[in-house]
């Protein structure tokens, strides 16, 4: 056991030096005596007697009470023998120097006590400083940690550094049984017997220290420190202490308790932030659910109303409508149904994205090819908006799922059409910069407020200025999901002048075509 070994070594060291002060005192007094003897009679008796106080004071300050008493006795004897007439002898008359001896002893005792107390205080404050430093550095270290296990490992290794003995932290599991969560050193030296665990449980339940050196079960060879804040106990730290004789000092107990408190408040902090995160998530999913219901019910009901209304009008009053009226009513039926179809497609797309069922069918995509499909898809509702395509020659190839990327571009271009006036220009530009193929769609529409530029890609979020334009807030969220599944990015920004630019960046990849793949064919 480490602790014990260290203490035993310390004791041996202190024993080795115990008689050293007596040697020094003897040498010192002998030296002083011979000095007086040589210089002798410059001094009076009184001065000589006073000077003999020096070794007493010195030994009291540095070596404590016993050496200083020895110094006092040696001093009196030397003074009496050498400097009180008759010289070089003890006589009965010398008994009057008993008084001096008493004064010497009193000085020795007082000084030694004071010095000892001072030393004790210095030692204590040094210890406190060390403890405070340890606690401070630990507390600084653990404030940055967001993971309970990392936190516990940190605390345990710091406690181990400080007490140099086996420690472990136990946390309650779901069934409120204590489970070992962290320990040091690597080999487990903690008693996990039933009785030990019962005491740990006791300490945990009551939030009080137990075991060696405490009021509860002080003879048990282990110390149980609850990890406790004002409100709650989070677990127990168990420290293996030495056997019979060695109790931990009050200081050490305080330090361990402080470690326990620090660990508890750090755990509390992490748990609180986890709970806050969960609460935020719940609120967010609540918000999304409400938005979903609002948006879906509105988006579904509006076209349904037009479909049902037009269809029933046609059935009930066929003869009152001119053929132009009929075509118009049928047109609203078709448009309503198409709108519902878009909504359902987007909802299904979202579900597929969120459930992780979106499987990319990666293949080489030709930007020109994809844009061709997109243009034919939006042709039906672009009205008189001009769509200009800027493609480099040759058009870039990149790996991706062409069906999904086409969906992304149809969504983005449809938005550009939806939010820009008829007759305006929409520019689709493709360029390859380094490892990225960038496709940008710029319109001359209402633009997106700066605050909304990231949020428009959130599910069900719609910009503040969309007044009147219908939509679910799903399209761009799906785009983002698909683009990110490709390892790309999508962002919205302002267009110089007026409108919006949505830029999609996709990894270009390497088609890995062999140099001579295109056998130089003769054109016939």
């Amino acid at each position, binding site marked *: 056991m480490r602790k014990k070994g260290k203490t035993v070594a310390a004791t041996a060291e202190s024993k080795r030096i115990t008689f050293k002060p007596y040697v020094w005192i003897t040498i010192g007094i002998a030296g002083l005596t011979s000095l007086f003897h040589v210089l002798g009679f410059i001094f009076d008796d009184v001065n000589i007697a006073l000077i003999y106080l020096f070794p007493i004071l010195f030994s009291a300050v540095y070596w404590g009470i016993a050496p200083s008493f020895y110094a006092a006795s040696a001093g009196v004897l030397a003074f009496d023998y050498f400097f009180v007439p008759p010289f070089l002898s003890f006589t009965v008359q010398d008994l009057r120097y008993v008084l001096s001896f008493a004064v010497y002893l009193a000085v020795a005792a007082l000084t030694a006590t004071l010095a000892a107390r001072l030393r004790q205080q210095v030692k204590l404050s040094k210890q406190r400083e060390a403890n405070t430093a340890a606690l401070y550095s630990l507390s600084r270290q653990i404030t940055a940690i967001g993971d309970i296990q990392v936190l516990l490992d940190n605390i345990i290794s710091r406690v181990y550094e400080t007490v140099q003995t086996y420690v472990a932290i136990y946390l309650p599991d779901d069934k409120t049984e204590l489970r070992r969560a962290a320990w040091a050193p690597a080999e487990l030296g903690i008693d996990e017997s039933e009785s030990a665990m019962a005491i740990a449980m006791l300490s945990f339940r009551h939030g009080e220290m137990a075991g060696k050196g405490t009021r509860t079960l002080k003879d048990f060879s282990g110390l149980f420190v609850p990890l406790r804040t004002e409100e709650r106990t989070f677990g127990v730290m168990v420290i293996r202490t030495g056997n019979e004789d060695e109790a931990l000092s009050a200081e050490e107990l305080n330090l361990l308790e402080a470690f326990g408190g620090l660990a508890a408040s750090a755990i509390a902090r992490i748990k609180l932030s986890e709970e806050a995160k969960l609460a935020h998530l719940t609120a967010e999913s609540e918000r999304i659910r409400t938005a979903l219901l609002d948006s879906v019910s509105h988006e579904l009901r509006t076209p349904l109303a037009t479909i049902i209304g037009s269809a029933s009008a046609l059935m009930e009053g066929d003869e009152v409508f001119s053929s132009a009226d009929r075509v118009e009513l049928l047109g609203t039926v078709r448009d309503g*149904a198409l709108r519902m*179809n878009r909504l359902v*497609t987007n909802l*299904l*797309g979202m579900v597929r994205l969120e459930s992780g069922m979106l499987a990319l*069918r990666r*293949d*080489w*995509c*030709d930007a*020109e*090819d*994809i*844009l*061709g*499909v997109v*243009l*034919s898809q939006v*042709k039906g509702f672009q009205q008189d908006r001009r769509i200009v*395509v800027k*493609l480099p020659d*040759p*058009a870039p*190839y990149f790996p991706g*799922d*062409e*069906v999904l990327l*086409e969906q992304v571009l149809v969504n983005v271009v449809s938005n550009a059409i939806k939010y820009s006036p008829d007759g305006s220009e929409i520019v689709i530009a493709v360029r390859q910069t380094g490892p990225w193929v960038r496709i940008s769609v710029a319109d001359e529409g209402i633009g997106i407020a700066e605050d909304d530029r990231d949020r428009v890609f959130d599910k069900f979020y719609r910009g503040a200025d969309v007044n009147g334009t219908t939509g679910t807030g799903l399209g761009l969220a799906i785009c983002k999901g698909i683009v990110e599944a490709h390892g790309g990015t999508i962002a919205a920004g302002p267009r110089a002048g007026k409108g919006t630019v949505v830029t999609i960046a996709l990894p270009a990849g390497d*088609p890995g*075509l062999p140099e001579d*793949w*295109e056998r130089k*064919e*003769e*054109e*016939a």
Partner: protein
Amino acid sequence: MTTTSGARILVVDDEPQIIKLLKVTLKAHQFEVLEAATGEAGIYQASMNHPDLIVLDLGLPDIPGIEVLRRIRDWSRIPIIVLTAKDREADKIEALDGGADDYVTKPFGMGELVARIRVALRHSGNAQQEPVLRFGRLVVDLAQRLVELDGSRVKLTPTEYELLKILASNAGKVITQRHLLQQVWGGHHHESDSHYLRIYIGHLRKKLEEDPTRPKFIETEPGIGYRFLLQDQGE
């Protein structure tokens, strides 16, 4: 187009609403309509009543549509058009490679379905290929291996010509990437070769189309393949 009127069409679908819709509209287009609500009934009708074309829904209650397709293909070359949901590209390819002539995605416009039916009937009608194909400004002379655009000769590489020949002689029909790869590159192609195909199609478009991003001749069916547009249906 008159040759296709009066053709007998078998509709295999379990949705009464779809059956009703197809029955009404196809009859209005002078087709005779047979119906079957299950795969088994569809196979039975196909063998007993000799329809000229089958419209087959891939999502049937009893046996998978693809299985119905396979079983009919075991003994018949009758044109089959499959109906599928939008985002089931894999199903579409499986059906096309399994012998379906074309596909229509639900929800579909009737105009689109009728156009597909007509193309499929016509291709099954004259197995004998005409030697000169005309598509508005474009003429493909199969006998002389000549391609002319607006009366002037277009120079194509052998691969480009082969691609154009397959697409143009199946005008109006979708051709899967795999089919094209097999036909043009023969047995020694693999799936990863599809970007070669894309590049050749790109070249072909550059030579034939005014604006390759707004193709008038070769249309891409994303994830599936290509379709050579009949010029009378060009928008």
